[in-house]
């Protein structure tokens, strides 16, 4: 435990709003949507009670929320928003604009299924529909990580060599609504870690400039290339920031987290808080003598190609567990990405895809054990299906 840190019990949503408070956000614009509501509800109380000196902008939709954030960030304010599911979908066009303008907005996404059918429960279909928005995208597994990564997201986004909006994905309800124990560092530590935001450029009537100019075909490609290169290059900065946080708090984070991967022939790969559930299954399977390990993808964008290849090293089979469906497609999003990371290599593991926990379907360690058992029965060179919808009836 870091010096002077406090161990407290609280709902994870509330922990996220404390992270935003302690990061001294200056502008917040958000629209409530389940299961994100508690985050912004608590932030609005903090602002109303004078516990956070920030502008809280009430808006009539998520489209407006993110538009307002574009404005406050462009004006040089440290800016936060949060949303979920349909809200993220309604933000869609502004998501691209925020990243193209290189505005370091931080957003918490309480991951929830997209309608229809209408579902308020957890999966990753919301973020997968917004995969290509040019933001840094991180996934967390528990309340402590939700707190830590919300604080770190500001530092990542605002790094003068990065300046890319950053999204912290946390599973709705099964993570956001749980009261659990976590460690809150003292304010001085966070202030040391995260100095005030100094914008490289900002809206200023005294120094007029154009933000969001249109681009002719002659220049659009170059602008996109710059964005792509900057996003990929942000990787090293992100790692350096995580390392600094690790030194301060003792909590170390990796783009691909490994659990019991030593000598593993079979690897489960998950993203989000089901990784911890899978870890319970992996421990039990190891006790039974099965060489199973677990990889948990923490960094989704920029995608950690090298780290993933290194982490998979030696395994014969990777079982990729997606939380979203690519309707009409051959592989769900995480499987497609992981496969593409290995396709060009001469030696690569076999891969099978299982879709789990859609629309809030409960996933227990027993389910992961069952997936491993079923995967072992498949011929990975010619699986019986392109991917498997685990648990579907009929």
């Amino acid at each position, binding site marked *: 435990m870091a010096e002077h840190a406090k161990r407290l*019990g609280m709902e994870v949503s509330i922990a996220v709003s404390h992270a935003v408070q302690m990061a001294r956000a200056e502008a917040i614009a958000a629209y409530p949507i389940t299961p994100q509501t508690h985050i912004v509800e608590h932030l609005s109380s903090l602002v109303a009670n004078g516990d956070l000196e920030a502008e809280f902008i009430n808006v009539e939709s998520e489209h407006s929320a993110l538009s307002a954030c574009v404005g406050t960030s462009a004006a040089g304010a440290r800016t936060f928003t949060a949303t979920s599911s349909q809200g993220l979908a309604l933000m869609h066009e502004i998501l691209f604009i925020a990243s193209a303008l290189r505005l370091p907005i931080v957003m918490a996404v309480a991951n929830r299924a997209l309608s229809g059918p209408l579902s308020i429960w957890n999966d990753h279909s919301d973020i997968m529909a917004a995969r290509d928005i040019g933001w840094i995208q991180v996934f967390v597994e*528990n309340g402590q990580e939700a707190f830590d990564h919300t604080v770190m997201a500001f530092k990542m986004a605002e790094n003068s060599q990065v300046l890319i909006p950053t999204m912290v994905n946390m599973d709705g309800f*099964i993570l956001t609504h749980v009261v*659990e124990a976590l460690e809150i560092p003292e304010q001085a530590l966070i202030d040391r870690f995260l100095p005030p935001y100094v914008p490289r450029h900002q809206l200023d009537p005294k120094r007029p400039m154009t933000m969001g100019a249109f681009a002719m075909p002659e220049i659009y490609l170059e602008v996109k290339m710059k964005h792509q290169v900057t996003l990929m290059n942000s990787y090293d900065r992100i790692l350096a920031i995580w390392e600094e946080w690790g030194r301060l708090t003792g909590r170390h984070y990796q783009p691909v987290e490994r659990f019991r991967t030593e000598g593993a022939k079979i690897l489960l790969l998950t993203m989000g*808080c089901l990784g911890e559930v899978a870890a319970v299954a992996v421990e039990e399977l190891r006790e039974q003598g099965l060489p199973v390990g677990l990889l948990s993808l923490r960094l989704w964008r920029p995608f950690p190609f090298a780290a993933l290849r290194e982490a998979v090293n030696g395994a014969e089979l990777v079982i990729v567990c997606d939380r979203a469906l690519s309707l009409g497609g051959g592989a769900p999003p995480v499987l497609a990405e992981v496969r593409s990371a290995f396709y060009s290599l001469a030696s690569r593991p076999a891969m099978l895809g299982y879709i789990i926990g859609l629309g809030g379907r409960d996933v227990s360690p027993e389910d992961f054990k069952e997936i491993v058992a079923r995967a072992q029965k498949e011929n990975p060179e010619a699986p019986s299906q392109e991917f498997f919808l685990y648990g579907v009836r009929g």
Partner: protein
Amino acid sequence: MLEIRFHGRGGQGAVTSVELLALAAINEGKFAQGFPSFGPERRGAPVLAFLRINDHHIRLRCKVAHPDVILILDPSLIRIQKPAMDLKAGGVIVLNSPKSISEVRREYGFKHTLAVVDANTIAREVLGVPITNTTMLGALIKATGVVAVESLEHPLKERFGPLAAKNLAACKAAYEKTQVEEARP
């Protein structure tokens, strides 16, 4: 790890109960998770709330399928939810009922260890309202010793402010009056 499932109706405070207990356990240095059966909140509808308490970090993110303890805030739910069906063999049932333990056993066929208290009467007398969630925490603590009653004091203050004292008093009264009987195989 101890897993507890609360059975109540929307508005009876089952979720508040698990949150308070989780906070009490965390304040004692333990690890805990308190969470509702997620979904739209509907007053009167049967709801579940879950509590896990452990000596180290809890990695599960699923519902409690086979609880060690079930707590029933509203006995009218027994016929609807059959809450004891997936209770572990050595499990404990904590029930709010004005009936005696033997009457309860006869009526519902419960074989597990049973703790019964008339929380409605206590809540009406101490709190002035028949809201039994904090009262029933006393019965749970009596039956399981999951946390010390004193550990609830701080979370209750945080949650209820000036009303915390009455809630703690109701909890303590239930602790005193709860009847516990070992399992009857």
